């Protein structure tokens, strides 16, 4: 098992895309992956979350009760999933939208001012890429080059400017962890 991740936030924050990029990159690197979205009424205007599993072995349960990594993009997501994270796990949270501290002291916390950085870059919508950059720098479950490759493929028809912006957001997120 390399990682079991729950990514959660508002609908529209690019939660599902973040998860898909990780899963797709993992697959291209020859790992076993599964991506499971929340679906149904909870998706409409409310919260969105998805589970991603990356493993060197067969992926057993696609349902994860206790994630190793939680990426919380808003306060409600932290409230809901903080108690479920495995001991010694990691919470990466979007500091721009979460004012409180993490209550638990048996795990590692990385605070990323994702919305602030995205705004600095001129587009709030890349806040998810900032956090994704931090995730990859921290967990190294997939390579940054592979994520960029998948991103380029996904954004294919869109402008080079968008790709450059997303790459910059990834880099800024990476720096939060490495510096």
């Amino acid at each position: 098992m390399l990682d079991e991740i729950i990514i959660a936030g508002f609908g529209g924050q690019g939660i599902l895309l973040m998860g898909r990029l990780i899963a797709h990159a993992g697959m291209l690197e020859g790992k076993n992956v599964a991506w499971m979205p929340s679906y149904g009424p909870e998706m409409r205007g409310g919260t969105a979350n998805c589970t991603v599993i990356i493993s060197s072995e067969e992926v057993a349960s696609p349902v994860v009760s206790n994630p190793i990594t939680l990426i919380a993009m808003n306060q409600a997501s932290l409230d809901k999933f903080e108690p479920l994270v495995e001991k010694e796990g990691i919470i990466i949270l979007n500091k721009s939208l979460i004012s409180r501290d993490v209550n638990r002291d048996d795990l590692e916390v990385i605070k990323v001012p994702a919305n602030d950085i995205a705004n600095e870059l001129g587009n709030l919508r890349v806040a998810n890429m900032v956090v994704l950059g931090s995730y990859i720098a921290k967990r190294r479950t997939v390579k940054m080059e592979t994520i960029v490759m998948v991103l380029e493929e996904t954004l294919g028809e869109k402008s080079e400017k968008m790709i450059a912006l997303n790459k910059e957001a990834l880099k800024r997120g990476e720096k939060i962890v490495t510096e």
Partner: protein
Amino acid sequence: MVERLLMKGNEAIGEAAIHAGCRYYFGYPITPQSELTAYMARRLLKIEGAAFIQSESEIAAINMVYGAAAAGGRVMTSSSGPGISLKQEGISYLACAELPCVIVNMMRGGPGLGSIQPAQGDYFQATKGGGHGDYHLIVLAPSSVQELVDLTIKAFDLADKYRNPAMILGDGLLGQMMEPVQFKEFQKERIPSKEDWALGSCQGRKPRRIVPFNLDPDELEKIVNKIGRKYEDLPKEVQYEVVNMDDPDIVVVAYGTVARVVKTVIQKGKKEGINIGLIRPITLYPFPYAVINDAANRVKQILVAEMSLGQMVEDVKLAANGKSKVFFYGRTGGVVISPVEIWEEVKKILNQN
């Protein structure tokens, strides 16, 4: 090596169907399988001679399936819960007329309009009839996106081989999740010729008719007996997976999504010194009675886990035939069983017995 693609379960079924030569799809969208209908619309409309219709109702869709199957085409429809119930009359007609087709049910919470979250409460409906009269569907239960692909292709082959409708019995979780899949090359020659029975132009031959009735009881009995003989043959198609069955302390029987949850519990058991075996039926009809009967000779306890109030457990009890105790654990309404719940249940059973 064949390329690995990251696909959503519902879309993977669609691609697998097209891969297997399915050129006709009729259906009506319903969560959690609507992506399949959408996928077939996108893909089939680009294939010459293929047909996609979003019908006015599920009843219309299944009767369109009857038409396309009678004309000899590989045809599919799909739905979930309430939509599958609406199709039952047509499914019974297809079985009586011995028409091959594939019906996909991505189960959701029931009964009634129920919920749209994953469930397994349609086991009885799928394996015991569902519609009226003496018939069975061939029922296949995938537990991964790759298996959705492999079993969809297999469902078409079995339906043609036995001239009987086949069902893919999945659930909302399998339909919504993404996993890597591979499509192996499909040999078109695998599709059997239907010239000796299908309709179409009768130029140069006597006209035929394909009807789901015979008003003379003796004649209908002959037809039903002929159908019955196919079901006697079906056990040779039984397919199942066994995991950790060398010397288990307890055996869990589960299919589909729940079987994968059990695999996580097996790993946990290994760390804690408890050997948990798994028997995962892949064909639900024909049901793998023999392997479960054999397990019942070797272990004292069998646990059946389902996302229902307990349906497959009846077949497991039949298979165990009193030789071991059969326990049941279920969640229903659209609640997915977690690994922790099954683990606790296993410990409870082992402590009590």
